[in-house]
Every structure is written in structure tokens, then in C-alpha cells.
């Protein structure tokens, strides 16, 4: 058992400061009786990349979606800053969502629209209905979009239709869209599941760089343990809707992984502590 946990403090919490994100006893029970989340609690007190791992059905996706209430939690609290998201009325929820940027596994871009329009959809929370209809966004949003395109390596693609892009390019658009919101928190749901291994690493690297630059926390669902170890500051392992592990990636041992996923030859997956950082490519 971890010393910090024994002292009552939560990992990642800066002593004396209110955590940026605090999940308390989050529970989700589906009508069928399935307990997707069972009393999940943790806090993110500093800007860090938190990887959430676990087998399919362990509750990773449900957890991420409960945070911005795309899925309604059954009970528990989700505090972003000082407000509890779970109890919020619709209006305030929309305001809260504006502060949370979400990146999806299947990119979830509107394929018939151009890259620029998809980016601008990140600002929908801040403009009115007719502005959205006529695509009239403030100049600061437009230049911000161009800057982000540059940053994610898609300069010049603003007029391309999304269905003409490759998987890796589409995910970059998805990342840029989330950042257009200038969010206080990034929720990332399996960003690399639909990508080839090399592109997956590039995307994870990009996400990590962006989160670090902006000094904002990021929760990343990921099923690839090696990727989680390479790019995360902290790992939370879920099993059957409960937190089974919460600590630095170096502390992931074969025993822990067995507890989270089940018995398997973990020697190929884990990077033991002290390994060099991956070579730049």
C-alpha cells in the first residue's frame, strides 16, 4: 500500500490547494443493472497527463463521459474547480462544457464540413444560433483557428473537407477543435484506437505537448499500456468500475497489470523504471 494513500492524501493533490478536478464516489448503474462505475474517486491537483487504463467494460469510457455528463451519473460528484457538474441545470452545464475539451476515438468530426468549420464548432458555446447558422465567428476565433492548425501541423488544410483526410490528420483536427475552446480540462477518449502505431505515437506526443504547454490537465483513456507509460505523468487503472491503481507509470508492475487486466505475459508490455525516453522520430 502506498504511503501517500495511507496518509489520507490523494495522489496528484497539491497540499493546501483546491484540486483542478475532483471526482468523488462516482457511480453509474445502467437500467440493465450493470454497474459501470462503482464509487470512483480521485483528484487532479496539478496540470498533468493522467492515463486511464483497464480492460474493455471496466468503465473507462463511462468515466470520461460522466465527467461532462454525456452520460448521466447515478450518484457522486464531479467538481471542476469549485462547481459540482453533476447537479448543474442545463444552462450551467453548457457553460461548464465550454470549459472542457473532448477528443474522441472515432474523431467525431462532421465529415461533410471543412476543417475550418469543424475547428470553429469548438467555439459554438460562445456564439449565438444565427452566428452558427451563417458561420460568422469573431476574428479572434478565426486567427486562433489558423494558429492551431499551424501548431498541429495542418497549415493550409482549412478549406479541405474532412472526408478527404487521413486518420492521423483527422485526429489532429479533433485535437485542434478541442483546444479551440481554450479548455480548463482535456478529456481524451481512446485517441489512438483507430490509428496505426506510428501515427498513434505522434498523436499521443502532440496531446502531451499541448497539455504541457497550456498547463492544463488531461485525462486520457488508453488501452495501450506501453503508450500510457511513455506519455503519461500518472496512471489510473480501472477494474470493474473501481479504481485498482493510482500512481506514476513507473510503479506499474506485472502484478498490478494482472490485477487490472488478468493474467498475461506482461514482460513485453511494461517498460521498467529507468528506461530511456523513446527516441525522437
Amino acid at each position, binding site marked *: 500500500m502506498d504511503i501517500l494513500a495511507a496518509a489520507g492524501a490523494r495522489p496528484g493533490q497539491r497540499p493546501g490547494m483546491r484540486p483542478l478536478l475532483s471526482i468523488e464516489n462516482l457511480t453509474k448503474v445502467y437500467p440493465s443493472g450493470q454497474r459501470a462505475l462503482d464509487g470512483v474517486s480521485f483528484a487532479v491537483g496539478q496540470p498533468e497527463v493522467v492515463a486511464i487504463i483497464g480492460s474493455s467494460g471496466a468503465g473507462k469510457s463511462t468515466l470520461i463521459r460522466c465527467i461532462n455528463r454525456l452520460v448521466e451519473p447515478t450518484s457522486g460528484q464531479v467538481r471542476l474547480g469549485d462547481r459540482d457538474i453533476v447537479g448543474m441545470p442545463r444552462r450551467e452545464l453548457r457553460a461548464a462544457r465550454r470549459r472542457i475539451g473532448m477528443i474522441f476515438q472515432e474523431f467525431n468530426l462532421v465529415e461533410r464540413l471543412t476543417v475550418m468549420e469543424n475547428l470553429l464548432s469548438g467555439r459554438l458555446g460562445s456564439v449565438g444560433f444565427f452566428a452558427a447558422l451563417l458561420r460568422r465567428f469573431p476574428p*479572434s476565433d478565426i*486567427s486562433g483557428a*489558423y*494558429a492551431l492548425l*499551424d*501548431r498541429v501541423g495542418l497549415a493550409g488544410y482549412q478549406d479541405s473537407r474532412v472526408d478527404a483526410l487521413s486518420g492521423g490528420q483527422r485526429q489532429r483536427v479533433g485535437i485542434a477543435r478541442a483546444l479551440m475552446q481554450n479548455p480548463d480540462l482535456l478529456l481524451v477518449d481512446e485517441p489512438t484506437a483507430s490509428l496505426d502505431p506510428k501515427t498513434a505515437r505522434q498523436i499521443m506526443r502532440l496531446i502531451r505537448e499541448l497539455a504541457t504547454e497550456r498547463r492544463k490537465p488531461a485525462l486520457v483513456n488508453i488501452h495501450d499500456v506501453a503508450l500510457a507509460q511513455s506519455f503519461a505523468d500518472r496512471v489510473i487503472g480501472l477494474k470493474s468500475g473501481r479504481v485498482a491503481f493510482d500512481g506514476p507509470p513507473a510503479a506499474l508492475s506485472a502484478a498490478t497489470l494482472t490485477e487490472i487486466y488478468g493474467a498475461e505475459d506482461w514482460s513485453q508490455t511494461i517498460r521498467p523504471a529507468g528506461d530511456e525516453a523513446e527516441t525522437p522520430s
Partner: protein
Amino acid sequence: MTALETAQKRYPEVWRRRSARASVVGWLWAAAIACAAAWSVSALDIEWVFFADAHEQAIDLARRMWPPRWSYLPVIVKPLIETIHIATLGTLIGLVFSVPLAFLAARNTTLNGFTWAIGRALLVASRSVNTVIWGLVFVAIFGPGPVAGICAVAARSVGFLAKLVAEAIEEADRGRVEAIEATGAATSQVYLVGILPQVMPVLIGTTIYRWDINVRESSVLGFVGAGGIGLYLYASINQFAWQQVLVVLAAILVIVIASEAVSAYIRARIS
């Protein structure tokens, strides 16, 4: 590009989805449609005065329809059955004629350019004329009665079915056809074994779909004298027997909904 580099650059603050030229074209289309709408409404001879009291008339009409005269029901049972007969027989006859027509109208199975043109012309003629209009034509030929109705339904269905089947024939897998041809089979056999099985699912599904539409069409064929329940509806309206009208409408509603349900069920079972 790194964060530092992007922070130092200047970026445009305006973005247009369409180029200036494309925008103009878009506005021209919108203007054209608006003009067309304005022209069509203004040129029509509409007595706007009627709009004033129309809702009162509607309520009056509704009141006169209630309560429905259920005693009229036994009278229309036979015509209802006749309506279904007309629809079913008409669809079947249409099906029989549509298969050869489809082969004629498909580019890959027709004999030459001339026959293809004839096939297409027959398709277009059949599909451009509504069932009820065909009813007018056949009543003039055969006199009033269900025979005219059946022919009318068949005439409209032939084109409908043949067009969809012709499309399926044109999209048929060439490989399978070639395989049969390579065995030295006669052309008709090639069509029978190579193409027809591929086209079967489309054919059956479309026929059932058309049957269900035809039930609806047959319910009004009686207006032009081509048999079915339409005659009784027409007569009831002309006699201002509104309570009977409601009963007839309810009966039509039932058979149309029932046929739609049957059609959806069978089509779901087939696919």
C-alpha cells in the same frame, strides 16, 4: 510547428467557406428559387377570400361527419375486397410483363440500341402516367368495372418494377454472367441462371412494395369508374352523406395500413 513559433506569427482573422465566385452562384440560385416561388403563387388564380372562412367550413364538415354510420359497413365489404383484388391482380400482371421489359431496357441485355430506346420509352410512358389516369384510359376502352382497374394498376406497375429491375440488371455482377457464357449456354439460359437470381431479391421486394402502394391507388380508382371502393366514396360525397364518408375513409385507412404492415413484414423476412 512549435508553440513558440505559432505565438510569434500573425494569422488572418477572416475566413470564408466559399470563394467569392461560389458565393455569388449560391445567391443566384437562391434568388432564382425565390422568383420561381413568387411567380408560381402569383400567377395562380387563387381566391384568397376563401381562406378567410375555410377553417369554419372545416369544423362544420367535421361535425357533420360525426357519428360514423356503421350500418353502411356491410355494404362496402365486398367493394373493399374487390379493391384488394384489383391491387393484387394488377400487381401480378405488372410483374409478369415487367421482367421482359426490364431485360429490354437494360443496356447489357438488350438486343440493340433501337430496342433499348423502345424499352426506355415504354418505361417512361408507363411511369409518367398515374394509375388513376390509366384508369381513365382503360375505362374508355373496356367500360367501367374492375377489369379497367386491373389494367390500370398493371400499366403503372410495369414501368415502376421494370425500371428498378433494369437498374439491378445493369449492376449485375459481370463475372457471374461470363462464367455461364463460358460454358456455351444459350443467351436465354445465361439470363435465366446468370442474371435472374441476382435480380430476384430486388424484384420480389419491389413487387411487394408496389403492391402496398397499389392498394392505396386502387382505393380511388372507382372515381373514374374502374371498380373498387372508390365508387362508393364518390357516391357518398356527392350525396353529402358525410357519416357514410367517414366510414368509407376509415375502411380505406384500415386496408392501407394493413397492407403496409404485411408488406413491411414480408420484406423484412426476405432480406
